[in-house]
């Protein structure tokens, strides 16, 4: 992705994020490099949530009063703006609790297909059918597929990683076969930032009639994403990684598929007709939004995509790319530091995982924290990926629109400090 747009005015942007001006650990300036786990929220998002709660709060899709009407408008209006933001139609977005629920929704609904009507036949998983994932998946897009395979007798297969941390797609047709029913993969690795070639996997899946499920948690917040253009069948992403609230995620499903997909969670709000003997279900997206939904969170996420749209996703991507290049160069030049995954910034988002020889990631994170630098340590819910890349765990820095080159320098200095503290410099 290249852009000729003007660079971000990060100083001005940072003023929108109150938390970035606080200090931590006895007066240290906060250097927040953990947006891949959760991002911070600008005043515009916080204000939108507050304004909704102060002026329009009511249960949506029920109630005969003005507040209920306004709340419903705010909720559905947010859905429309989020749909526009990711290249989807209004009815193709389902609000979930988080991205993990989105993957479970698809996996469980497919598991329910065998006992649903004939329209759900294409989702049925039979013993011997194949579900394809990758070794770089976040556990959220792996464990639900292991589980549905176990319940249905389907077989789990996966694309392996090359030593550089990118997918080994040398023999796509031996992994995706006529028996493949699902191909679930991440758009952008939450550990290494590797951006996968969606078109290659979608084409292979379509050739055999398999359903594609995209983990878009790390792509939607950080660059332009258009689900229709990508051609995926389902995609899931979360609000709190894109300047929005926690407690809300979004599942995208191609209209034709959502219409045929059986429900996952059932109860109020998702029904058409209920009798004691049985029930029929509402059309999507309501079919997949059982019970009272989150409301201020949806409104907040709507405000977040407004904010991101004004800044411009191309510019955000370019900004993070520059930070990633600087981090790879700075960290890569320290003796004793091993960059995990690709050594370059090609087809990669703003995530840089690494190990420091002689300093366990948890200890490195502690030293960085004492300097005010917030990073993630551990396996970042991607244990198989770490095993593939011979890392027990890693330190991960992730970048967003509000991070600066100064903060990358602080990280590099902090890593040197950790080496010094543990006597391995």
């Amino acid at each position, binding site marked *: 992705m290249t852009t000729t747009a003007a660079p971000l005015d990060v100083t001005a942007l940072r003023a929108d994020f109150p938390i970035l001006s606080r200090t931590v*650990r*006895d007066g240290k300036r906060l250097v927040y490099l953990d947006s891949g786990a959760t991002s911070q929220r600008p005043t515009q998002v916080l204000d939108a949530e507050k304004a909704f709660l102060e002026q329009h709060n009511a249960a949506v899709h029920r109630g005969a009063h003005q507040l209920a009407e306004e709340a419903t408008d705010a909720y559905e209006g947010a859905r429309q703006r989020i749909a526009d933001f990711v290249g989807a139609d209004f009815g193709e977005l389902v609000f979930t609790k988080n991205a993990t629920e989105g993957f479970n929704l698809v996996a469980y609904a497919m598991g329910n297909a065998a006992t649903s009507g004939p329209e759900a036949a294409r989702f049925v998983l039979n013993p011997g059918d194949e579900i394809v994932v990758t070794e770089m998946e976040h556990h959220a897009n792996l464990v639900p597929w292991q589980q549905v395979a176990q319940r249905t007798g389907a077989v789990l297969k996966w694309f392996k990683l090359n030593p550089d941390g990118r997918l080994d797609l040398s023999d796509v047709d031996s992994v995706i076969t006529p028996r493949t029913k699902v191909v679930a993969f991440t758009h952008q690795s939450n550990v290494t930032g590797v951006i996968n070639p969606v078109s290659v996997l979608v084409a292979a899946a379509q050739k055999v009639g398999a359903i594609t499920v995209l983990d878009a948690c790390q792509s939607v917040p950080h660059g332009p994403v258009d689900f229709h253009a990508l051609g995926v069948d389902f995609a899931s992403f979360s609000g709190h990684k894109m300047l929005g609230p926690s407690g809300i995620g979004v599942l995208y499903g191609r209209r034709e598929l959502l219409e045929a997909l059986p429900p996952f969670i059932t109860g109020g709000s998702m029904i058409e007709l209920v009798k004691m003997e049985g029930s029929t279900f509402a059309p999507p997206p309501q079919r997949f939004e059982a019970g009272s939904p989150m409301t201020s969170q949806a409104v907040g996420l709507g405000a977040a995509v407004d904010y991101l749209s004004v800044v411009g996703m191309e510019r955000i991507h370019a900004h993070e790319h520059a930070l990633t290049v600087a981090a790879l160069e700075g960290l890569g030049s320290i003796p004793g530091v091993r960059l995990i995954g690709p050594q370059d910034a090609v087809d990669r988002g703003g995530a840089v995982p690494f190990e420091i020889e002689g300093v*366990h*990631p*948890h*200890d490195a994170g*502690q*030293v960085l924290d*004492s300097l005010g630098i917030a990073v993630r*340590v*551990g*396996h970042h819910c991607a*244990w198989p990926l*770490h095993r593939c890349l011979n890392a*027990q*765990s890693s330190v991960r820095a992730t970048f967003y629109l509000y991070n600066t080159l100064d903060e990358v320098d602080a990280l590099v200095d902090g890593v040197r400090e950790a080496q010094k*503290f*543990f006597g391995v410099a």
Partner: protein
Amino acid sequence: MQLQQMYQEIILDHYKNPHGRGLRDPYDAESFQVNPTCGDEVTLRVHVVDDVVQDVSYDGQGCSISQASTSVLTDLVVGKPVGEAFKKMDAFVELMQGRGQVEPDEDVLEDGIAFAGVAKYPARVKCALLGWMAFKDAVARSQGAA
């Protein structure tokens, strides 16, 4: 500096020169424990004769806190009756879960008192207890098998 409060010299010494490390025979029971948030793991064996802890041996990968606390554990419990070892374990657990408010007894915990600073960091408490949980589990298994 806060960092030194947490990483006492004693902890760093145990980390760099761990006591009792390596898996040994004979043993009565073994326990494998993992900290799922960071992937740290320990395999720990106990050898108990006449209700006395004859040997604790272990192997694993983990941060300085988990490795050092397992090293301290071996110092504290080897040669002690199981009941006394468990009393030390209870004291260590109480210290670690005390959010920095518990005054440790050096007579009971010896080098273990160095972990008082770790107790102020809730995210690291699990690290400090990893080896101890393995010890508790292994002893229970050895008694179950006996």
